[in-house]
């Protein structure tokens, strides 16, 4: 196995671990939303890297669906977060 492949795998793993740390520690729910969005995009990157390394194109539909749908999670959380801005209307 190539050295570059091992480096790529280690870097992806460290990035995913840092995202999970932010999801666990994040003080507000919006931090967790941002971190989970980053984690989902990283899953997309890993699927693409697998396609490029192994020379097939079977994961393209999964990447397309993730890219189209991942926005709804952030929007749903951002709309229904409790609002604390107007104590006196």
């Amino acid at each position, binding site marked *: 196995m*190539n050295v*570059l*492949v091992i*480096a*790529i795998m280690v*870097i*992806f793993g*460290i*990035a*995913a671990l*840092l*995202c999970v*740390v*932010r999801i666990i520690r994040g*003080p*507000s729910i*919006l*931090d967790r*939303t*941002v*971190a989970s*969005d*980053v984690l989902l*995009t*990283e899953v*997309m*990157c890993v699927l*693409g*890297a697998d*396609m*490029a*390394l192994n*020379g097939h*194109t079977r994961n*393209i539909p999964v*990447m*397309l669906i993730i*890219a*189209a749908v*991942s*926005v709804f999670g*952030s*929007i749903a*959380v*951002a*709309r229904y*977060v*409790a*609002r*604390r*801005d*107007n104590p006196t*209307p």
Partner: protein
Amino acid sequence: MTAFFDLALPAPVAETIALVLILLGAILCLSAAVGLLHFRDVPSRLHAATKPQVLGVVLICLAIAVSQRTIGGMLMGLLIVVPVILLQFATAPLSAHMVGRQAYRNGTINQRSLVVDEYAESKRTPPAAG
């Protein structure tokens, strides 16, 4: 014409280019995660999260196209990969905008770090706005 489409990069060259592109994308993913862990409030975390992430996806999609080796295969790969990039470009600012606005309204923003606060003039949020 078909002879032109059958022209191929040598296998080690194509593999090395694809590996370097994937490595750059992985480093951008890592920088997004480090920024997520390092910054203090939600808007700066959004700033760290969205931009390197989208560029990383673009680089990895280019790596997918390059790893097809023949010129026709590369064009076909680009055609397959372009919808993913366009969707990512369309949806990443959308979610970042919604989350950032809600962070402002929620008070999870560092007020002293703002230079201009144009949003404070509209005290009342309109009824159906986010």
